[in-house]
């Protein structure tokens, strides 16, 4: 890992805002994600969490504000350029390559590590062959790491919802992120599957990618895996802190449950 910036935050978001016409989807959001941290982003439906994700990863251009990753300003960069810096995301609405097998999906995710010139494509040299072999080995390893080993050669369209979510994470991991951003990875999972998913996330953190940003509705999951959480409501930041602190914050309780009658 990059030794010179070890203390500096990995991701810095300053004054991030996005308006769609008259709707202020995200207003003036500030937060930082440190190295080796799992950062949870929670809030009621329509709070602007996914918009925030899209702004950071380049799928939307911010109206105002600044995003910096590892000390580089990435505000408004194209998604593929941001991914090349090591900031890789998954999607809320499942996005995989449907007709391809699980293994092929994850192999496709290894694009950056197996990049080659057009000439080397037609006349492969030894390093190209090695990169290709490593990508294949690593793809098989990732599939197993995410408990999809039995589904290795199954086309993605045959997978269950829970398996699809895992596959999406595997594809994102294949791009070898420094920071992995997961948008509702447990959406559509039942509570048992979600618990299993939490276990896998912890394993990933130990073995694969230390820094994760996670948007999630499943409170027990997000509170369990996160080091810090930020709560959003109506496009604004409501609170930020350790899971236990945030859980008891009166504003947060109000956003989720409504105000207690006096």
């Amino acid at each position, binding site marked *: 890992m990059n030794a010179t910036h070890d203390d500096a935050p990995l991701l810095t978001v300053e004054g991030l805002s996005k308006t769609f016409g008259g709707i202020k989807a995200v207003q003036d959001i500030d937060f930082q994600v440190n190295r080796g941290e799992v950062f949870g982003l929670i809030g009621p439906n329509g709070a602007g969490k996914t918009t925030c994700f899209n702004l950071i990863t380049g799928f939307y251009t911010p109206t105002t504000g600044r995003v910096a990753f590892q000390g580089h300003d990435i505000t408004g960069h*194209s*998604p*593929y350029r941001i991914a090349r810096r090591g900031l890789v*995301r998954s999607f809320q609405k499942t996005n995989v390559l449907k007709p391809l097998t699980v293994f*092929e999906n994850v*192999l496709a*995710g290894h*694009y950056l590590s197996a990049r080659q010139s057009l000439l080397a494509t037609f006349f*492969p040299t030894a390093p190209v062959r090695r990169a290709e072999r490593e990508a294949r080995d690593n793809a098989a390893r990732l599939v197993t790491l995410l408990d999809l080993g039995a589904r290795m050669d199954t086309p993605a369209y045959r997978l269950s919802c829970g398996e699809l979510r895992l596959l999406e994470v595997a*594809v994102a991991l294949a791009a070898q992120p420094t920071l992995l951003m997961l948008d509702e990875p447990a959406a559509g999972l039942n509570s048992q599957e979600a618990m299993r998913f939490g276990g896998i996330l912890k394993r990933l953190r130990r073995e694969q990618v230390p820094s994760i940003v996670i948007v999630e509705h499943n409170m027990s999951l997000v509170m369990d895996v996160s080091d810090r959480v930020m709560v959003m409501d109506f496009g604004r930041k409501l609170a930020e802190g350790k899971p236990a602190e945030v859980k008891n914050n009166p504003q947060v309780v109000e956003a989720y449950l409504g105000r207690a009658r006096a």
Partner: protein
Amino acid sequence: MKFERNTLLVLGLIALAFPLLVGNQYLLHIGIMVLLYAVLATSLNLIVGYVGEFSLGHTAFLGLGAYTAALLSLRLGLPAWATIPLAGVVSALFGVVIGAITLRLRGPYFVIITLAFAEVLRLIANNWVDFTNGPMGLSGVAQPALLADASPLMAKRFYFYLALGLTAVSLYLAYRFVYSNNGRAAVTVRENRFVAQSVGIRPFVYAMRAFVLGAFLAGLAGGFYAHYITFVGANVFGFAFMVSMIIMVLIGGKGTLIGPLLGALLVTLLTEYLRELQELRLSLFGLIVMAVVLFLPNGLMGFLNHRRERGDRAAPDDSATRVQGGPA
């Protein structure tokens, strides 16, 4: 991957033996046309199957290749071994220009603009009389020098092996491309642009690479066509070639390497076999294509692969996969 490679090698061996076993010029001519169409269908398949957009203007590259080879041969006296590769290069360069414009478009817009490019080139070929000889076309394109005193049968055999060489080169390039990181990136873009971008792929680049490779191969085929037929007219930009290529790719199965070959073989043979039926032939092809699109959307290869998959699974697997259901 292995299955495709082995099938291709077997097909190649059969093709190598074909001219030695057959002493009939007519059959050899059909063999040559099958190979020519195999290259064309392979090149179109790179666009339809791997970029995922439907090009109706692929004849632009065939025609550019044919005119390039004919003009270089007639005006500069270049031999075939130089004109055919140059035909590919010129087509590829036009592929860069046309791709840079059309690949920004999706769906029907892409179809219409590619068609427009082919049509514009056809009009230029027909009307720029000083350069292309207009509707009279370019005749008398030189045959390779070593055929000067060969018998017609030997000449046919020579052309057959030349065409086989081109087909081998095309399939080698296509095979390498498809089974490399490039091909995977192109498929990723085709299947899901969001996933592609989020793993670091710049979508336009890979659509462009597949498009230009397709243009290059079609240009090679055009160059060969010019020398084999020895005449090039504006009809090389015409819709008839386009229709044949589309039928081949659709029947054989887009997005596979063997599919277009199978399509080229079937359609060329069927066209010859049904020659007596004249116009009715085209109506028949229309019906066949409709049936394929309705019942075998992934062509014959898609059908065979599906069968193979099922066969593999039928024996040892549990009922779990069946419960999950088929494609949505």
